[in-house]
């Protein structure tokens, strides 16, 4: 299993997921349909994880460097988190969303594999590399989910529909979990930077945007204490937080301030 037959694998996994989602959705009262649906979802996740593990062995380095590779991780975590949160909170739309996104990332990779780069610059040869990136990807997956919850709820509010989703509680849970990973990612990054570049924090553009992302969610967390800010405001903060998060993830390379960033590896 390598990038050569990735398209086949991606299609198999996506199909498993699509069928699984449909089975769960057909009849919410049929236990067997739901169970078989969930099994298909799990099977897809297992295949994708195996694919990642094989890639890791073949490339002789963690497959975390190119955007294409990180998308695979995002896909697997999004799917896993979607499933876990579905089991916990029973929101069907949530599982549809998270598997749709996970599948989208897989399909994107068929068209944009960006896998040519087998080399890894010296600064990335570090035991910090894997924990730093994986923890960040989990954080992004959780926080991304919280923003979708927020946007959906804002839409319901706007439509005046009184769907009682307890969306804000779900967001709180997602943000608390996501934020704890985000903090770990930030701190692992600082510890690594000290070893690789000599200082734990240099306000490099990527670091600056990582801090901005962190600060937005910090404001959300504090605004939610004793309902200090309006629920609607909190939801808007989440929606905005995701924009900044995406900026941090994809956009930084295109900013004028990033001209001398140590984090823009991809054009090496």
């Amino acid at each position, binding site marked *: 299993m390598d990038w050569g037959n990735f398209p086949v694998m991606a299609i198999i996994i996506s199909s498993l997921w699509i069928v699984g989602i449909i089975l769960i959705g057909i009849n919410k009262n049929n236990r067997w349909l739901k169970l078989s649906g969930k099994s298909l979802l799990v099977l897809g996740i297992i295949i994708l994880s195996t694919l990642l593990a094989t890639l890791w062995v073949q490339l002789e380095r963690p497959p975390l460097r*190119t955007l294409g590779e990180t998308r695979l991780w995002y896909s697997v975590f999004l799917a896993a988190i979607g499933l876990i949160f579905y089991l916990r909170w029973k929101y069907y739309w949530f599982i549809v969303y998270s598997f749709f996104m996970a599948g989208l990332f897989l399909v994107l990779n068929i*068209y*944009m*594999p*960006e*896998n*040519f*780069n*087998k*080399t*890894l*610059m*010296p*600064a990335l*040869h*570090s035991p910090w590399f894997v924990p730093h990136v994986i923890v960040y990807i989990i954080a992004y997956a959780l926080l991304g989910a919280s923003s979708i919850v927020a946007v959906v709820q804002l839409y319901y509010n706007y439509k005046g529909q009184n769907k009682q989703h*307890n969306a804000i*509680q779900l967001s*709180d*849970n997602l943000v*608390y*979990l996501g*934020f*704890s*990973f985000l*903090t*770990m990612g930030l*701190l692992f990054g600082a*510890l690594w930077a*000290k070893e*690789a*570049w*000599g*200082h*734990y924090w240099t*306000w490099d*553009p990527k670091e*600056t*945007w990582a*801090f*901005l992302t962190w*600060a*937005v969610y910090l*404001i959300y967390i*504090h*605004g*939610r*204490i*004793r*309902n*200090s*800010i*309006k*629920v*609607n405001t909190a939801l808007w903060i989440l929606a905005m937080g995701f924009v900044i998060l995406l900026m941090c993830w994809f956009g930084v390379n295109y900013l*004028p*301030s990033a*001209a*001398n960033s140590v984090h823009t590896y991809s054009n*090496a």
Partner: protein
Amino acid sequence: MITERKVWDHPWDYKEGIIITLTILLLGFTLEYSTGGAGITHLIVYPNNIYFGIGFVVILLLISLFGRSSPVVEWLESIPAAIFSIGLLLFVSLLMGLTMQYDNNATGLIRKLGLSHIVTSWPYMLSNLFLLITLGLITIKNLRSFRWNKIGFIVSHVGLWIVLFGANFGTPQMQRLQMEVHEGEIVNTSVDISTNESHTMPFAVKLVDFILDEYNPKLALINNKSGKVFQTNGMGLMIIDSGASSNINEWHITVDEYLYSSAKAGNKYYSINEMGAAPSAFITAINTNGNTVEGWISCGSYNRPYESLKLDDNYSVVMLFPEPKEFTSVIEIYKPNSDPIYVNLKVNKPMVVDGWKLYQLSYDSKLGKWSDISVIELIRDPWLPIVYTGIFLMLIGAIYMFWMGTSNRKTKVDDKPNKTN
């Protein structure tokens, strides 16, 4: 009876927050502007940073002890103050994220307002102080009424405060020096790049050998006219190795032979081992019409020419310079009255000597793997243990937060269905 609260009537909340925050921001820019954009670097130099640091902690403690009844202190310990102080630092960082930093060519308002060097500007310093005050006061308050169920709160807030405090008051004492060593030479001086000052170190370094490990070079198609590398969605480069093959554009390319270190004689390359010997490869390219082109390519080196292979009017095959995998300085460190220490210094693997951390920084990139120079960076940051203590506490706080989720909120949110909006 409910009456409308006027601005500045106590207790303060968001309205006053906006006014206070904007005032701090305005004050910051005014101070920066009035100094012509000189920033704060010259104000906080060692040992002033220590006096300021101690003074700041003492004042914070005094305020917390004796100012408790003051409505201002009460506000500083509130959620709105937390949100505004985080928000202010967020705003200042946003400016930093959007403008080019460390830009010495910046002129005019950008420079005078400090936008080209935010980290050493007044607005940045004031927003950090504001955050240190609010975070400090709320943390001390909670420490004074310590209960075990607050442990998560305390660990993460104390941790963050210590990190911010250490980073802000400690940075002036950080030293970053560079030492350039030639093979066989013993050096005990280094240079501060920002000031060009020379320093004598308490130890000397001898470079025994510099070793550069490289990946195999990559092969690419380039457009004969524009000179651009042909690439679609990141595809189009292949790693050269004997026997490797790949399809690029309309060409199927096979590497028949790869020589790691070679030189050209006549029209063929041979393996040799001497300075400047470059990698080369014999390749065969077959296009979809069955046309076959074969020949040698080489990326050359500082003293040898490169060679490309023309496929047709549009494209040629070239070899790109190999990328470094790892670089190592084999060094010996001499200290008075002790045996020399023998180490391999690599990127990501610094070592500590007498409070100085030594980093493999760079080498003579023109000579590449034949470089006989290594540049070592020497860093001393006496506040590092303080910052690391804070980071450690924050990590515990983050793990605690992951473990407990929202269930550890001592101040429960209103769980009733919300009728806001």
